[in-house]
């Protein structure tokens, strides 16, 4: 999940990512491995679980003078490597401090 905040002029003022996936090592060192031929067992699992909700809170501090931001949340599936992405959902909200 990639969360991006932009000021009204299009300047990126914040970006955060969350990664949801099982993470495995070879059980001989502490380095995470990709690829079945190197992985031996999961040591952490942040993946999406059936019928469970994964909740996250991301905060951005707005730079001086910026009172409105366009926030976009892109949920993508990445297979094999981060360059091979499948968009799932994209939600954009405009947030303003002015009333």
């Amino acid at each position, binding site marked *: 999940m990639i969360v991006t905040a932009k000021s009204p002029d299009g300047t990126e003022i914040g970006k955060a990512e*969350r990664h949801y996936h099982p993470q495995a090592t070879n059980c001989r060192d502490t380095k995470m491995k990709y690829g*079945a031929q190197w992985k031996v067992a999961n040591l952490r699992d942040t993946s*999406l679980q059936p019928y469970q909700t994964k909740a996250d809170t991301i905060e951005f501090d*707005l730079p001086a003078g910026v009172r409105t931001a366009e*926030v976009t949340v892109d*949920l993508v599936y990445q297979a094999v490597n981060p360059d091979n992405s499948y968009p799932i959902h994209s939600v954009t909200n405009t947030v303003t401090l002015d009333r």
Partner: protein
Amino acid sequence: MKSLKLLLVLFLVVLPFAAGAGQTEKKAKTIDELVEMYDSSGCKDCHAEIYTQWEKSHHARPLMGVKGGLMLTPLATKGATAFSPDDPQRATIKNFPCFKCHLPQALISAEDSVAVELAQALVAQDATKVAKLRITCTVCHNARAIIHKRELGEPEKGVLYSSKKDIDAHPDKTFTKVKKSAIMKNAIFCGQCHGLGPNLEFDQPFQCANLYGSYLHSYIPAGGTHTCQECHMKKGDHVIAPNFNDDKQTSELLAQAISLDVQTLGYEWLRKAKDYTPKVVVNTKITTTAGHRIPDG
């Protein structure tokens, strides 16, 4: 002397064949021979739609990874993995533990020379040759159709197994009968390959898919009742999506299973007197109804 010779001929030539009937099937020495043994192209004469679906599936390109990547290349590359041979010429079936699921027929029907040929093809990045090796119709509908072998025996030669019903006269030269499989509608049928976790039965464990483990230990306890086939093979669809080579379809499938809720808030946070920090808060909630963790395979 003559009768001694005859006895010797009987002992050396005839007896091994008699003893091995049904056990020592001739094995493929080349990739082409293995392909020929498990060739299912005849199925499309009557099952054209299913065959076309299968051709788009990952089952039709189990050694090709996503978008044509020759994913087994490290296994043929000296020093790249614990399984890799020092020389492709010396590769054996044991150098390719992935065959357990990615090419199960190799474990049943291939000589080590097939592993040599595959290792050489991988080193040469010969995608055309590697792509010949596929999980064909007969792999699922025969070789993997029975798991209760103590009770039901091995899959029979000349018999296809289906999820539906027995057919006494199946119009095919090789597979003249169809029998109903006890497990083909059950999740465990897919679970034979779409794994439980680490493959500890090998002399060097490795972990590929965990999907069936996730189904058993997360989805079922959460009250899930569907089988793999009910979601991934609706109306007998043999694409068995996702097909990661089809970006649009994969995105749509994921969007069906996963929901995203986004709530945003803007306010000025007061850290200390008169020191306001303008802030945007983004609350996200992602929920999945899939029968397994995402991602998994």
